[in-house]
């Protein structure tokens, strides 16, 4: 753990320097570089205000809110079915996964449970949207550090997954398929076989990424040891998802707190990496994508027959109460705290998004790194703007 103590010391020193600067307002010739709000590395409108000394970052502060759409407030003036259309658009790359915790929270309040078939299909779609989301990360990380080709592969193969989602739900990005008590519709004929072949292709894609990036010496030189987050710091900042697992914390809500989906029915494992650097984050996500294809394969084998909708009234009124459900989304723990007063719509919805917490570690992890490392770390932390500013 010498790296940590060095880093802490460095962070301390630079914090001192930053304080001195603010207090005395002495121009020591440092440069302020605003990465963003419009910058390719922030994939959206995030701004990282960096104090630079040469090319070294003294202080980096994420400034968010450029894309705040007020979804929590908007949900309060909409009925429960309408809310899912908004919630779709929080993490727009894994949007089906967004709907699930909200619907589960509403279901818990209404004390209904979706029939098993619906749960299995939910889980399949959940994992498909995880694959679609992470596949883009796997390619995008290459772009962040300069390799152009992986992202095209990612778009190429993600397209197949999106097609599968579209064939079931009708929407590629915003499925809006989950309903309180079940699903909107059942899966069409022939879809299972197609999905199997797509999963096969996704595994090939993962192998390609392994050859193109993971095994690449330049990639390793850029990522290994860059942005190391020790486990206790990761836990302290409330990191979740692959970022936390890459720091060696064996923590996965799918396994630890399964809120009633089919994950406990299949055989899979949680991947962790002890290093906590950018490479570990990439590697964990790569393994998770593979694992997700395996989960989907197993789930496809055993979809139970039955209805896809529980008995729920046509006009949904949720009884008064509060519920918090969080699931292991592609980006990390996504939770919905739903307060109902017995109306057609929720009284209050608090959304706990993974990216918001993941990005809050930026000031800690970016002290003393070089500008190119800022990009590597941002890329490997993997946030989605809609997920930060919801």
């Amino acid at each position, binding site marked *: 753990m010498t790296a940590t103590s060095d880093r802490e010391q460095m962070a301390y020193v630079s914090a001192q320097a930053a304080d001195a600067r603010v207090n005395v307002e002495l121009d020591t010739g440092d440069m302020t570089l605003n990465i963003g709000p419009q910058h390719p590395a922030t994939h959206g409108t995030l701004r990282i205000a960096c104090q630079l000394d040469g090319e070294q970052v003294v202080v980096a502060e994420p400034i968010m809110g450029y894309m705040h759409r007020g979804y929590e407030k908007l949900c309060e003036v909409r009925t429960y079915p309408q809310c899912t259309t908004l919630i779709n658009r929080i993490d727009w790359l894994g949007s089906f996964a967004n709907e699930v915790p909200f619907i589960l929270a509403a279901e818990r309040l209404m004390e209904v449970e979706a029939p098993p078939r619906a749960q299995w299909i939910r889980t399949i779609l959940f994992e498909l949207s995880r694959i679609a989301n992470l596949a883009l990360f796997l390619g995008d990380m290459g772009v962040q550090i300069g390799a152009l080709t992986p992202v095209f592969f990612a778009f190429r193969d993600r397209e197949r997954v999106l097609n599968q989602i579209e064939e079931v739900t009708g929407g590629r990005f915003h499925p809006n398929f989950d309903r309180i008590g079940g699903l909107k519709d059942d899966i069409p004929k022939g879809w299972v076989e197609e999905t199997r072949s797509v999963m096969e292709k996704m595994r090939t894609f993962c192998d390609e990424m392994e050859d193109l*990036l993971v095994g690449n010496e330049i990639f390793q030189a850029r990522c290994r040891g860059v942005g190391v987050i020790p486990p206790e710091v990761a836990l302290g900042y409330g990191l979740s998802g692959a970022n936390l697992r890459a720091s060696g914390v064996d923590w996965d809500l799918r396994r630890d707190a399964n809120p009633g989906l089919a994950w406990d029915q299949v055989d899979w494992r949680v991947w962790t990496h002890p290093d906590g650097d950018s490479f570990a984050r990439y590697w964990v996500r790569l393994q998770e994508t593979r694992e997700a294809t395996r989960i989907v394969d197993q789930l496809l084998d055993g979809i139970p027959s039955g209805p896809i909708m529980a008995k729920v009234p046509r006009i949904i009124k949720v009884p008064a109460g509060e519920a918090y459900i969080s699931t292991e989304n592609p980006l990390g723990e996504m939770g919905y705290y739903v307060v109902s007063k017995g109306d057609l719509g929720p009284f209050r919805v608090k959304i706990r998004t993974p990216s918001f917490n993941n990005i809050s570690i930026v000031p800690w992890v970016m002290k003393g790194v070089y500008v190119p490392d800022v990009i590597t770390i941002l890329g490997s932390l993997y946030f989605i703007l809609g997920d930060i500013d919801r």
Partner: protein
Amino acid sequence: MPQLPGLIKGLGVTARTAGRTLFPKRGWKTLIPAPQKGAVTVQYPHEKEAPPDRARGVIALHEENCTACMLCSRSCPDWCIYIEGHKVKAPPRREGGKPRTVNMLDRFDIDYALCMYCGICVEVCPFDALFWTPEYEYSESRIADLLHDKDRLGEWMETVPDFLDYEAGSEQKVRKVPR
């Protein structure tokens, strides 16, 4: 076998992809470059992608079924459906019955500039008057033209595909599209 350096492996991946794109497997013609076949991209204006049948392209209105009950309009999350109707007395269904009061549809507009394509309206419609069709080519240069009135929505009805069969184990009933 000793591990190949990652740098060379990476070059292999790109070269292989280029080869596969240039020379897709096409029987005896394999050695003739045919990137048009090998590329995964679709050259949009020249060739068109066929979206899945369930794709949410545009909403079609089967006017005869609509009773102007306003359910879709009320359940729309961004209130982009505009319905106006008036009541008329229709002749009784059976001889000697009472004349019925029927809602006549005057206006049914969907503003696609506002629509979020969530499909709630289609789902809540109790009379099977609204259907999704996978058509997607209706962009306009003026945003006001994206307001489709009931005639325009009715024209989409021809493009509505039949509902798909379900995978084994389903208890859903396959619905029929009114033609």
